């Protein structure tokens, strides 16, 4: 007992000493509580500095890397506010296709093999380095060499510095460089000094400091917790009243917590609310709910190298046995639309003339009979990514429905990395059906989906460069159509689209995969914030902070 008392008194003594030693930094009284007695009597009667205009956001998007060249994941939501590309692509239906960012204007040679960009002058990176032709070349060269999305630059031969404010992209084959340069991945223009430092030291980027030209700079970063942005006062676009001086992003993985933070007023914006709770905001006069098409979609690959899925009739039968409406209703709370092949609705080269399978069990049974599998009698192993709650919700519906046509399904959740690894190793022992949430890399949305998921490599199992054609499907006619369409995209847009649509129709007919649905993006924005504009082409950028303004 005595020892305890001694310990206690020591503790008290220690705390007294510590507080006495503490530097006499007087915190400025907060605006909310200012009893006069709190302020030291001797304090000068100066006003406390006005609190800056702060926007608080809760977002689940986490940082996998701050290196803008390597970035290929959710951090794009933040990088897009600190870094800029040469061009930004506008949402479908805009008057102009592009908004010029670091390039003021550009032209393409007649053969489509050279793009010349004229750069905005007087722009500086966050570290004070000038943004010029050499910086653009350094950034693109770095992207070609080591970007997560380096393959977008495959058509590029070299970047040529014409003069200080002019760069020329020389191509190996005609390709839409304006589109590629507006990509969310692998196209940021970064301070050359930072690129050098990053090349010498892998951990250079870890602290989150930004080295772009964008309107907001990263002020501080606490992993898994918080990112604080502050205005880049020298931003070339200028600033006006109402734009936020600071943006504080809390990284909150749990959707219901984000919703509570929004409703409790701890944040003004919350990205990614629980889908089943969105309806509550529809009736709230303080919020506007935006339901927008997105270019994420769900695909289910059939293993076309394995019997009986190597038979097109069987694949068609199974495509008719998918309860599309129920899957959208239960898997995505109604926030989706059935897909037209792998191309998400509304983006190039989407077209509504592409066939969509209906839910028709009689047709499915008839097709199975034709294929010599009357009454089913075979079983299928279906894998999905266990971290994806949507897939977990709708996978059982496939099992139930297939059971009605006599096909037995084993549903197997795997961590995405394992699921993918299993699929890539050996088709003979791999899954029969692979559920995948896919999104294109750059704004060439639908075409990327058709290339990455269905263009076949030469050797079995026909995996191509991206390793996402997990139906191992090889169709020479499809490949030929794609080759033609790809080669003329830059020079003959309409002709290219026609070829893509033809390929897409063939694809749906051959049914190497089930095309479930395109997802919808939902944004709940309070009336106190103006200027929010959704851009389908940048699905990972929830908010461009620069567009937002506090309502008066």
């Amino acid at each position: 007992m005595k020892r305890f008392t001694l310990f206690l008194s020591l503790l008290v003594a220690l705390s007294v000493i510590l507080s006495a030693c503490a530097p006499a930094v007087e915190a400025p009284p907060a605006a909310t509580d200012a009893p006069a007695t709190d302020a030291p009597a001797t304090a000068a009667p100066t006003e406390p500095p006005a609190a800056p205009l702060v926007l608080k956001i809760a977002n689940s998007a986490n940082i996998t890397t701050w290196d803008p060249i390597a970035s290929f994941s959710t951090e794009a939501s933040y990088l897009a506010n600190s870094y800029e590309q040469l061009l930004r692509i506008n949402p479908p239906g805009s008057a102009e296709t592009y908004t010029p960012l670091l390039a003021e204007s550009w032209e393409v040679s007649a053969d489509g093999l050279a793009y010349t960009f004229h750069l905005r002058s007087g722009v500086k990176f966050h570290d004070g380095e000038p943004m010029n032709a050499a910086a653009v070349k350094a950034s693109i060269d770095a992207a070609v060499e080591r970007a997560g999305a380096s393959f977008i630059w495959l058509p590029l031969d070299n970047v040529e510095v014409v003069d200080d404010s002019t760069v020329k992209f020389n191509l190996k084959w005609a390709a839409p460089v304006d589109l590629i340069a507006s990509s969310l991945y692998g196209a940021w223009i970064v301070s050359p000094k930072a690129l050098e430092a990053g090349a010498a030291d892998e951990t250079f980027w870890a602290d989150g400091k930004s080295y772009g030209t964008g309107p907001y700079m990263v002020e501080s970063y606490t992993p898994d917790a918080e990112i604080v942005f502050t205005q880049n006062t020298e931003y070339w676009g200028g600033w006006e009243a109402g734009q936020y001086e600071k943006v504080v992003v809390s990284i909150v993985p749990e959707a219901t917590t984000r919703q509570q933070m929004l409703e409790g007023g701890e944040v003004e914006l919350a990205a990614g609310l629980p889908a089943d709770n969105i309806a509550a905001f529809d009736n709230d006069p303080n919020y506007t709910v935006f339901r927008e098409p997105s270019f994420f979609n769900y695909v289910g690959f059939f293993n076309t190298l394995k019997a009986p899925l190597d038979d097109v009739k069987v694949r068609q039968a199974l495509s008719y046995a998918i309860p599309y409406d129920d899957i959208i209703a239960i898997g995505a709370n109604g926030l989706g639309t059935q897909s037209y092949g792998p191309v998400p609705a509304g983006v190039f080269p989407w077209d509504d003339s592409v066939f969509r399978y209906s839910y028709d069990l009689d047709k499915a049974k008839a097709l199975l009979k034709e294929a010599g599998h009357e009454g089913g009698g075979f079983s299928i192993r279906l894998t999905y990514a266990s971290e994806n709650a949507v897939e977990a919700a709708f996978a059982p519906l496939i099992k139930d429905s297939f059971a009605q046509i006599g096909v037995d399904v084993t549903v197997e959740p795997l961590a995405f990395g394992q699921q993918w690894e299993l699929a890539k190793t050996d088709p003979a022992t791999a899954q029969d059906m692979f559920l995948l949430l896919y999104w294109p890399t750059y704004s060439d949305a639908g075409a990327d989906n058709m290339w990455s998921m269905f263009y076949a490599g030469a050797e079995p199992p026909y995996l191509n460069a991206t390793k996402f054609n997990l139906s191992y499907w090889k169709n020479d006619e499809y490949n030929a159509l794609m080759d033609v369409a790809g080669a003329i995209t830059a020079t003959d847009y309409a002709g290219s689209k026609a070829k893509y649509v033809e390929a897409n129709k063939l694809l749906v007919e051959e049914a190497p995969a089930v095309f479930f649905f395109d997802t919808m993006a939902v944004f709940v924005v309070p009336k106190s914030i103006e200027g929010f504009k959704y851009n389908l082409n940048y699905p990972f950028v929830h908010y461009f902070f620069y567009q937002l303004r506090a309502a008066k």
Partner: protein
Amino acid sequence: MQRLEFILRRLLTSIFVLLGVSVITFFIARVAPNDAAAMYIGPKARQEDIDRVTKQLGLDKPLPVQYVIYMQELSRGDLGTSIATKRPVLQELTGRLPATLELLFFGMFLAAAIGVPLGVLSAQSQGKLPDLAVRSLSIIGVSMPAFFLGLILQIIFFRNLELLPLAGRVDADLRFTDPLTKITDFILLDSFLTSNWVTLKDAFLHLILPAVTLSAYPTGLIARMTRAAMLETLEQDYIRTAKAYGIKQRVIIYLYALKNAISPTLTVLGLTFAFALTGTFFVEIIFNWPGLGLFTVRSLLSLDYPAIMGMTLFGATGYVLINLVVDILQAWVDPRISLK
């Protein structure tokens, strides 16, 4: 002298325990089919990039060689680089440790401060109403899942009563009005040391709900443990003797009986503490507490093997050290226990 020898011997055997843990974790983490290089560089990478990273990460070498390399680097204090975050694992751990420890210390303090008196009360009134109440309460505390209790507390204290903040360690606004000077990264301690009372109060309010949620399980356990140990002790002859001498009931219970009954409670407290170092995932995710639990689960899900290794070794070291401290404490409160 005997105590010092005991500590040294325990530390020495711990090294073998940790070696065993490292071997098992290293190989189990690598048995699961997963291409770490592909994870490192991200999806859609070209094969030559994957090959380059495979080489760079040393994944092309046989597993035993990789293990030896890992251990060599570990002996230099290098835990490797996380596949998922690309930051040094050591930096990831130390950066998150203060948040976890702050929560843990407070939660365990609550558990002990509430659990022990409840257990004593329960033992004192064995079979009567208070005993029944405490026993029911401790069963609820032990069996209530943290993710449920946390949400209920949030709804009551944040949503309905608007008394306590929802999540996080400190209000985001404070960084602009009352910026905190970082010294130790323990927000409570830092704000106290720099006399930043606004932040201190805010951080304390933020701590209450997660700490209460975290303490529910150990509180129940400690109450039950204390009750059982007290009942046994109160039956002892020396207690009857003390009663016969006319010593006050309160002194008998809290001074003579509790001191002998406290050892199992200490063990429970120690083990829960060690477990909670890396195991408070539910509390952390619900209260968005940037601690080690969140990081552990994220590393496990992405099969980020350097991070998994780091976490496991760190957790195992925690267990070993805390157990040692508990043993020493037990010998201190109960001289019958000798350190051999």
